[in-house]
């Protein structure tokens, strides 16, 4: 199994955290992982992108050029993801912010209202976690069953009170698929 994912959203939406947590969990589940952020002159509001691969075998190029799955967190990311997505690939779209359909007909599109779901749980900022739950359910690549422990080591103790909310977001994301 190799799952190559391309993630994109605007700076501040938590694309980098989403990618890092995804590979951290995958590593804890015994998979090979690689995470490569596209850094540049981007700042808050610019497009943040990440190439993320999890696999049961040694990973070749860390650069995802034809993703099996892509995550579209905002409008600006849609054309970027459509351009690279693999033929017949999976596309998870944050329908809270992306109000149009992809032009490509070959893609398997799943729409998740990440921001609305996150706000119902308690904070719009965890929209990225809703999306991660959906990615787990839709691909089956990473189970996320070790996420709670990962969050405890990923975030400082002062932020641990937010973990239950994050776990609820993952659950909700899984259910939304």
């Amino acid at each position, binding site marked *: 199994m190799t799952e190559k994912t391309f993630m994109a959203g605007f700076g501040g939406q938590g694309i980098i955290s989403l990618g*890092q947590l995804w*590979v*951290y969990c995958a*590593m804890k589940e015994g998979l*090979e*992982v*690689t*995470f*490569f*952020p596209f*850094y*540049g002159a981007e700042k808050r509001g610019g497009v943040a992108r990440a190439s993320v691969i999890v696999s049961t075998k*040694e*990973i*070749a*190029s*860390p*650069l995802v*050029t*034809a993703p099996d799955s892509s995550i579209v967190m905002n409008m600006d990311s849609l054309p970027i993801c459509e351009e690279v997505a693999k033929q017949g690939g999976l596309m998870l779209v944050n329908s809270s912010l992306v109000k149009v359909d992809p032009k490509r007909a070959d893609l398997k599109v799943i729409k998740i209202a990440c921001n609305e779901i996150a706000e119902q749980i308690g904070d719009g900022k965890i929209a990225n976690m809703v999306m991660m739950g959906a990615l787990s359910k839709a691909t089956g690549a990473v189970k996320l069953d070790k996420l709670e422990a990962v969050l405890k080591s990923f975030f400082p103790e002062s932020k641990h009170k937010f973990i239950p909310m994050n776990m609820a977001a993952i659950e909700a994301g899984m259910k939304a698929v």
Partner: protein
Amino acid sequence: MSEEKRLMKGNEAIGEAAVRAGCRAYFGYPITPQNELTAYMAKHMLDKKRTFIQAESETAAINMVFGAAATGARSMTSSSSPGISLKQEGISYACGADLPMVIVNIARSGPGLGGISPGQADYFQSTRGGGHGDYFHLVLAPKSVQEAADLTYKAFELADKWRMPVMILADGLIGQMMEGVVLPPAIDPESLPRKPWGVGHQADTHRANNHVSSINLVPVELEALVRARFKRYEEIKKTEVDFEEVNCEKADLILVGYGTSSRVALGALEMAKAQGIELGLFRPISLWPFPEKRIAELAAKGKKFLAVEMSMGQMVEDVRLAANGKGEVHFYGRCGGVIPSEEEVLAEAKRLLGK
């Protein structure tokens, strides 16, 4: 107990490996895409009460490393391409003075300031003695975060063993990406053997002065020193060559690449296999000394080579020298910070095979 696998950026893994190798002093100056390494050393070297200095320039940093290394301490600097160019004068001096040190180049695209995206166009500079004078130094090229840690650790050992600078040549992608890594055991710098040629420690030894310098104004003496160093280079070529190969016996066409390019090439090899096409992969790990013998052997068997690089073609010249006219050598490269895709490398390989 074996170490737990950690998720780390390449830059941070290099920093932690250096700390664990007993690096006593680090001197650096910020530049993208290696900043996390300097930042990591700032925190962890000071935490361990070792020396960390952010120098006023790259030139100052390499000369501080020269000073620290002259005392026998394991010492290191890091930078990215334009900064490494500035360090070349100091590296030449260190090679002339036979000083062990570790220099990390997290290479970006050039020439000039170029861009901050990954590049492999510093191959000539790294492997040919980038400063003035007759010299070489070891150059190791990691392909992953794990190998970045392992080779940095090994670089300190090799530097001491051969009394010469060792360069880690990685591109910005290796520095910036995150992967799982199991770190090597920590060495206490105090437990390392003292170097008898080092300066200092006279209060406890009462020995005569040691001079660590690259200068010698007597031509026949300097010639003898350079010749002795080149004899050492021949020993290094016998023992320190390192490479990895995949499917080279079976395939007629062998992709040759180091670092990130080798992983792109591996992807092309796997895609080819799925299409029923055999490709080989030859990955030099030591860029100097270059694994020329093995390439010559493969060339003698009539293999073809396709060098894949993130440059306009630099390592390919070493492949050509090693093949020495016996095997066809082709080149595919991207530059300017563009990373070739597995698909385009496969397309080029298929074109060469007429498929």
